[in-house]
C-alpha cells in the first residue's frame, strides 16, 4: 500500500512535469517585450514613439551651440575646434549631410507592426500611426533639404539570405517626389492628429500644417529659383524641380498656411505678453506656459535627465553661474541688418559724415530706434541679463585717439594724468582670442534661460527648441502670397510679424519684394536653423557667401540688399572716452573691428547646394547617383 502511494505520487509529478515536446524550450523572455506585448499597450507604443522623437535631426539646436554659430552671423568665442568656423575658406562638400536609414527602417517597422496590432483602440492606433508617419516625413524632409532626392523607403525590407542584395537597392527619388511625399503625408495624417495648441512636443494638426506649408514653400522656391543656378541639377530630377511646378507648390504652401492661420488646428497667435517688445521677443523662446506661438518643439524638463546646457555655454561670463559662457557672439553683420523704425536700413552711426567719431551718453543709445527683435535676439552692451548688467567694453580712448586696454578680463591700468589703477576693459571683454568673452562686442540673447540655475552644469535649462512657430507660418504665407502675385496679402502677413517687433509703419503691397522677405526671415528667425536652407532654396547662397574677404566699406554698403555678401563676421567695440576737460569726457564711442582671428571666408560652392553622398553609401548601392558639382 505504501509502495502504491509512492508510485501514484511519482506518476502524478511526472505527468505534471510533462510538456509537449515542441513547447519544452518555448519560454517567454522576462527581460524583453515581444512585438505583441509592445504593440498592444498604448503606454509602450508611446515610449517607442518617444525614442523616435528624440532621434530626429535638426540643423541648429540648443543641444549644440556650434550648429548656430556659422555663416558669419556670429563669432565663435571658444578656442580650439569651434574657431575653425572663422578660419576655413570653404565648406567641405560633406557638410550638413545626414543619412540615417536606421531610423527610417525602425519607423517603417514601427508602422508595419502597429498596423498589425489588434488590441489597441482605433483612435489611439490612428494617432500613433499618424505620429509615426509624421516623424518619418520629418526626417525625409530633413534629408531632402540637405541631400536632394534620396531613396524613399516606406516599407521595412527583409534580407532573403540568398546572397544577392540587388533587390534591396533603391535609386534616389526625385527632389520633387520627396517634397510631394512630405506634403501628401501631412495632408493624409492631419485629421488623425489632435487640433490642440497645447500639444507641442508631439505631433499635432498644427505641426502637420506647418510642415506641409514649409515643405511646399521650399519646393516652390527651388522650382522657381533653380533657373539661377542651372548647373545645380541632375538629368533625372534627383536634384532640381521643374519651373512649371512652382505655382502649384506656392499655392499649396499658402493654402496650408491659411488653414493654420484661420484656426483650423487651434488658435495659434503671436506671443504678446510683455509691453517691452524686446523682452517679449526673448520671452517667446523661454515662456513655456501656454505659449500660443510655438507649434512643434523639442521639449526639455528639469530633473528629468533631459535638459540642455545652452544657457551655460552662452550666458554672459561675468558673474555667471559657471566660469564659462559667452560662446556665440552675434556679428555686427547681423546686428546692423535690423531695420530702423521707419522701415529703412542703415549702418549703426559710428562716425559722422566727416569721418569723426560720434559720442554717446550711454552704451545702448547707438542701438536706439531699431527693430525690437535686435535686443531680443542679441544681448547688447549696457543691457541686463538675470538683473546683472553685462560688462562689455573694450577700453579707454584718449584725446589723441589711442586706446588703453588690457589683455585679461577686467584688467587694471593707470590712465594718464591719474595715479590709481582703474579697470580698463570689461569683465565680459571684448578681448581678441580670449574665449568666452564677447569678442564681437555682443552676446546672444535668444534661448537664454533667465531661471536661476539655468547656467549651472548640474541643473541645466528646460527652455525648448522651437521647430515650428506661428511667426514662421505667417512669413511662409507672406512669401507664398508674394510669389503668387498677391503682394497685398503678403504685406498683411508681414505686417503682423513686424508690428510685434515694434515696426508699426505698415508695409504696403508695393514694398514687398523677395529682398524684403529674405530680410524679414533673417531678422525674425536668426539662430533657428533657417539661414542656410533659406539661402539654398533661393539659390542665393553662392552670392552672399562668395568667398571674397570683406573690409569696412563692404560691410557698411548695401545693408538690407539680398545680394550683400557676408563672408566674415565683424565686431563693434565700445570705448569710454578719457579726455578730462573735454565735453566728450566720460562718453561712449564705437569702433568697427575685424578680429585678427577671422582669417577665412565663407565660400559656398555650387557643390555645397546638396551635400556629398559618400562613396561607401554609393559602393553599397550603385543605383545612387552622386550630387552635381562635386569631386
Amino acid at each position: 500500500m505504501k509502495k502504491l502511494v509512492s508510485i501514484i505520487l511519482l506518476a502524478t509529478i511526472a505527468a505534471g512535469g510533462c510538456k509537449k515536446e515542441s513547447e519544452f524550450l518555448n519560454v517567454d523572455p522576462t527581460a524583453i517585450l515581444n512585438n505583441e506585448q509592445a504593440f498592444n499597450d498604448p503606454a509602450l507604443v508611446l515610449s517607442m514613439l518617444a525614442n523616435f522623437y528624440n532621434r530626429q535631426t535638426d540643423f541648429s539646436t540648443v543641444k549644440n551651440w556650434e550648429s548656430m554659430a556659422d555663416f558669419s552671423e556670429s563669432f565663435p568665442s571658444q578656442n580650439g575646434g569651434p574657431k575653425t568656423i572663422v578660419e576655413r575658406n570653404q565648406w567641405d562638400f560633406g557638410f550638413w549631410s545626414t543619412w540615417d536609414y536606421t531610423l527610417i527602417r525602425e519607423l517603417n517597422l514601427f508602422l508595419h507592426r502597429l498596423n498589425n496590432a489588434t488590441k489597441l483602440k482605433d483612435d489611439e492606433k490612428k494617432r500613433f500611426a499618424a505620429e509615426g508617419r509624421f516623424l518619418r516625413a520629418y526626417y525625409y524632409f530633413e534629408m531632402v533639404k540637405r541631400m536632394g532626392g534620396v531613396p524613399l523607403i516606406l516599407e521595412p525590407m527583409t534580407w532573403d539570405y540568398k546572397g544577392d542584395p540587388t533587390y534591396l537597392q533603391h535609386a534616389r527619388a526625385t527632389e520633387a517626389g520627396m517634397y510631394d511625399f512630405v506634403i501628401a503625408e501631412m495632408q493624409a495624417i492631419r485629421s488623425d492628429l489632435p487640433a490642440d495648441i497645447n500639444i507641442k512636443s508631439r505631433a499635432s494638426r498644427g505641426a502637420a500644417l506647418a510642415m506641409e506649408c514649409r515643405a511646399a514653400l521650399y519646393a516652390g522656391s527651388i522650382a522657381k529659383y533653380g533657373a539661377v543656378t542651372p548647373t545645380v541639377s541632375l538629368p533625372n530630377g534627383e536634384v532640381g524641380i521643374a519651373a512649371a511646378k512652382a505655382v502649384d507648390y506656392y499655392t499649396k504652401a499658402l493654402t496650408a498656411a491659411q488653414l493654420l492661420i484661420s484656426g483650423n488646428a487651434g488658435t495659434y497667435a503671436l506671443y504678446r505678453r510683455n509691453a517691452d517688445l524686446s523682452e517679449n521677443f526673448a520671452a517667446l523662446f523661454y515662456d513655456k506656459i501656454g505659449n500660443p506661438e510655438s507649434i512643434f518643439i523639442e521639449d526639455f524638463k528639469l530633473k528629468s535627465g533631459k535638459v540642455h546646457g545652452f544657457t551655460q555655454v552662452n550666458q554672459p561670463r561675468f558673474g555667471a553661474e559657471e566660469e564659462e559662457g559667452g560662446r556665440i557672439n552675434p556679428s555686427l553683420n547681423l546686428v546692423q541688418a535690423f531695420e530702423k523704425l521707419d522701415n529703412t536700413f542703415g549702418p549703426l552711426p559710428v562716425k559722422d559724415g566727416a569721418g569723426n567719431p560720434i559720442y554717446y551718453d550711454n552704451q545702448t543709445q547707438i542701438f536706439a530706434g531699431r527693430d525690437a527683435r535686435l535686443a531680443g535676439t542679441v544681448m547688447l552692451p549696457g543691457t541686463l541679463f538675470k538683473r546683472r548688467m553685462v560688462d562689455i567694453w573694450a577700453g579707454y580712448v584718449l584725446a589723441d585717439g589711442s586706446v588703453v586696454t588690457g589683455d585679461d578680463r577686467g584688467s587694471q591700468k593707470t590712465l594718464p594724468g591719474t595715479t590709481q589703477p582703474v579697470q580698463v576693459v570689461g569683465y565680459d571683454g571684448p578681448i581678441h582670442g580670449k574665449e568666452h568673452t564677447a569678442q564681437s562686442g555682443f552676446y546672444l540673447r535668444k534661448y537664454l534661460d533667465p531661471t536661476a540655475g539655468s547656467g549651472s552644469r548640474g541643473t541645466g535649462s528646460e527652455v525648448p527648441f522651437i521647430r515650428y512657430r506661428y511667426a514662421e507660418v505667417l512669413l511662409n504665407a507672406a512669401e507664398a502670397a508674394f510669389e503668387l502675385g498677391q503682394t497685398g496679402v503678403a504685406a498683411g502677413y508681414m505686417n503682423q510679424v513686424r508690428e510685434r517687433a515694434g515696426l508699426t509703419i505698415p508695409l504696403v503691397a508695393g514694398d514687398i519684394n523677395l529682398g524684403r522677405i529674405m530680410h524679414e526671415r533673417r531678422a525674425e528667425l536668426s539662430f533657428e536653423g533657417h539661414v542656410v536652407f533659406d539661402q539654398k532654396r533661393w539659390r542665393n547662397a553662392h552670392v552672399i557667401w562668395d568667398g571674397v574677404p570683406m573690409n569696412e566699406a563692404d560691410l557698411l554698403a548695401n545693408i538690407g540688399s539680398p545680394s550683400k555678401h557676408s563672408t566674415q563676421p565683424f565686431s563693434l567695440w565700445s570705448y569710454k572716452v578719457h579726455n578730462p576737460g573735454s565735453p566728450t569726457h566720460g562718453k561712449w564711442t564705437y569702433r568697427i573691428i575685424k578680429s585678427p582671428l577671422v582669417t577665412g571666408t565663407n565660400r559656398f560652392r555650387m557643390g555645397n547646394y546638396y551635400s556629398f553622398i559618400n562613396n561607401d553609401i554609393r559602393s553599397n548601392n550603385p543605383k545612387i547617383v552622386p550630387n552635381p558639382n562635386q569631386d
Partner: protein
Amino acid sequence: MKKFCSYILPLLAVLAASCKKDNFDPPAARLHGRLVYQGEGIQVEYNQVPFQLYQFGFGKVGPVSNTQFTQDGSFSVLLFEGEYKLTVPNGQGPFLWKKQANGRPDSITVRMSGDQQLDLEVTPFYMIRNVQASAAANKVTATFGLEKIVNGVDGKNIERVNLYINKTAFVSSGGDYSIASSQKGSGAITDPASISMEVNIPALVPAQSYIFARVGLKMQGVEDMIFSPVIKITL
C-alpha cells in the same frame, strides 16, 4: 650572453623578418603634367579644380585619388604601378573636358610603370592674352585681352573680370589669396580684346617691396574662373 641568445636575438630576427612581410612599398611612380591648350598652360584657381583617378577591381565605387590642380594648372600624384583612368568630373574647370555620348565625362587611360609626364589637352572657354601689369602711384594696373575659344552652343558669356593682388605668389579670390581686388562686370567691358583694370594697393604689413598680381575671368554658368599667369611686380 645567454639572455642575448635566447631572447633578444630571436626577437630581433622576428622583428627584422616581420618588417618585410607586413609592409609594402609606398607608391613611387610619379604622374605629373599640366593643363594645356595648344601647348599653352591653362591657369586655374588654387585647390578648386579637381581631377580623379579610378582603378577597376576593388568592388567599390569612387575615385582612388581625388586631388586638385595647382594654380598654374599643373598636377602631380604618386601612384602604385598599374592601370588607371583619369578624368575631370562634370561641371568642374573653366574648360571643356571630353564627354561620352551619355554626357558623362570621358576618361584617359594611364598605365603607370615608372614616372610619367602627361599633359592634359583641354579646350578652355576663353584664353587671357597679352597680360601686362605694372605698379605706379600705389596702384597696380593690368592690361589684357580675352580671346573666345569655344563658340556656338557650348560657348559661355563673360560674367566679370577681376584683378587680384596678393603678398604671396598664391593669387585668387579666396580669403588667404588676395589682399585686394577690383572687378569689372561684362557691361563695363567694351572691347574684350583690350581691357585695362587697376586696383589700389593696401598697406602691406609687414612691408615688402614686391607684390603678385593675376587676372581672372568668370564666365556665366561656369563655377571655376580662368586665370592669367601670376606676375611679380616690383614696387
